[in-house]
């Protein structure tokens, strides 16, 4: 029997002017990577904030890790990377991470070991440069985002919620984050991330939920969604112009030709 990390039933959230989320129900199986997909303003962030009990739904119930979402004990088991990024600009990287760890109930000596491991892993601490003593404002935006990502994972949460985690990251750092997400999954953690980049969702997610205008359009495992809404498989014949890469190699007259490429100029 499937256990669910999150079960939402009939959740709605209305603001003064508009309805952010309307009668949303979804179920996130434990130990999976789950994509919350939708255009800007679809209600993804509102949904995430309700799961985190930052805002309270007007109607409906949300169960998180088997408890009502309002249970204060839950916060220590959840890691969260908000869409809007920011940290205390004047604080040093290690102090910020210690603070975020303390908010999750991790004592300092324990936190320091975890911080070191993560800084090494995301190359914020290398033999050339140790960024842990730098102030946040000295870091590039990509590096700040990595610090926040570490902050969301320091306490080894069972459920990780990432709001648009890859936006603003260069391909190298984005890959490092993707690797970290896949490792979480291997360790049996549940990861929810929101995105509007379908390639990321397709390559990483076990299941997805597509929402727009605050309403759920589609949800289920990737294969279910494809079978149910994608129709039968279609054979596509694609004619492709030579890539820039091929043209470059041809003109420069390089010899290293990958399989499938043609010509020597």
């Amino acid at each position, binding site marked *: 029997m499937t256990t669910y990390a999150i079960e939402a039933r009939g959740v709605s959230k209305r603001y003064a002017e508009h309805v952010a989320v309307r009668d949303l129900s979804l179920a996130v199986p434990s130990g999976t990577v789950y994509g919350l997909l939708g255009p800007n303003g679809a209600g993804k962030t509102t949904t995430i904030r309700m799961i985190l009990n*930052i805002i309270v739904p007007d109607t409906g119930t949300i169960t998180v890790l088997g408890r009502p979402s309002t249970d*204060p004990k839950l916060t220590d088991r959840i890691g969260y990377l908000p869409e809007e990024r*920011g*940290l*205390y600009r*004047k604080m040093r990287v290690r102090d910020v991470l210690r603070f975020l760890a303390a*908010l999750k*109930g991790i004592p300092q000596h324990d936190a320091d070991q975890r911080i070191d491991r993560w800084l090494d892993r995301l190359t914020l601490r290398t033999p050339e440069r140790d960024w842990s003593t730098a102030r946040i404002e000295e870091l590039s935006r990509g590096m700040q985002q990595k610090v926040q990502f570490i902050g969301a994972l320091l306490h080894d949460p069972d459920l990780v919620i990432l709001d648009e985690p890859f936006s603003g990251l260069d391909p190298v750092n984005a890959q490092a984050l993707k690797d970290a997400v896949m490792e979480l999954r291997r360790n049996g953690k549940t990861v929810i991330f929101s995105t509007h980049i379908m390639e990321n969702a397709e390559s990483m997610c076990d299941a997805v939920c597509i929402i727009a205008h605050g309403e759920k359009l589609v949800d289920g495992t990737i294969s279910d969604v494809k079978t149910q809404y994608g129709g039968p498989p279609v054979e596509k014949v694609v004619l492709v112009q030579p890539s820039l890469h091929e043209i470059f190699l041809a003109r420069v007259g390089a010899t290293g030709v990958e399989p499938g490429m043609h010509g020597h100029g």
Partner: protein
Amino acid sequence: MGESWGKLWAVIRREYLERVRTRWFIISTVLGPVLLGVVTVLPILVATRDANQVANRVEIIDATGTGLGRYVARAMGAKDDADVQTVSPADLPQARTTATTDVTRRLATGFVVLDSATLRSDSVYYAGRRADQRGELTRISDAVRAGLIAIELQHRGIAQPVVDSIAGIAAPTLSTDTINDAGRSSTSLAKALLAALVAFFLYMAILLYGQSMLSGVIEEKMSRVAEIVISSVSPDILLAGKVIGVTAVGLTQLIIWGAASAFVVMARGTLFPAAAHAAPAASAGLNTTAFLDAAIALPWSWIIAVFLFFLLGFLFYGALYAAVGATVGSEQDARQAAQPVIMLLVLTAVFISPILQNPGSQLARTMSLLPFSSPIIMPLRMATVDVSPWEVVASIVILAVSVAGAIWLAARIYRVGLLMYGKRPSLRELRRWIAAAG
């Protein structure tokens, strides 16, 4: 519950350490007393110096032809008639011009003109550097009155030695006690000044730390850190932690300053040797030693009360400032939104001086009970008059309840406001926030 305490502690710790480590904290800790000293103690010292060392020579121009000037000079404490100039009414303008020059050249501090109008007890004229000092003017008019009495006695045929001896009766030094509903207590100018100093200090401290709290909340909100933090702790705990953390920084500064002041009081003999030897009766208790003696005479109960009012005042205004911070979207907005809170403080400061002059008045009693002014006004009153214990207790209870209320209210505004990035809410929207967070 234990976990909540741990998180509260984490918030307090961050707030405290990040603030204490700033250059701003170090500079204000060092410069605060210097600045306060410049605006309060320095004028006292200068005035004392002035009174003790620079001769207060008043020239007396007597155009009455009765010898009034001689008596006036005696009544003002002169040993001889060197400062008295007897002129005919026709020469008066010339005498005035000369005397004015003497004053501008600092040969005299001022001059008095006695003429026929003076003889009729109608008017007497003074011009000089101390025309704005009540004490000096009273001294002069008292002396003129004594002179007029002597002239009158002369007219009535009283023997000259008797007239001289009556004219020579000196005004005794006035010492005062204050009587209020609670009974009698001693007052002194030094004590009043000390009280004003403390009140002014509390006012400045609350204002400065309030602003610092405001910008801290705005930074947290605008940098969006707040969202991470409130996914881990409730907004109530975050708010309480911030208010307590900022208060702790203020207390740290208070303790540093308190210890420094205690040192000055203890070592006053060494630090102000000249003042220590000055004749105590020279001026009405207005010198450095008197000032420090007043400080040392303050009972422990007063020090504890100041500490309590400071603590509660900080918490009260801290919560209000934090709530304001949560409603705004930028530093510019904040300046406007904080106006009502600043007005409460400024209103209190405006009344420091009137209340000092009449610390037992209905106004003073009311303002020492109202929560927004009691942290500043009650210590002020307590330093100048005996305030009945029940009034102090009532004031503290009202303030403590208001602190709880302010934190409750602020937490509700905080909960909603921290995630709102749009324009500032109207009062109606604010009411809805408070209701929604319930």
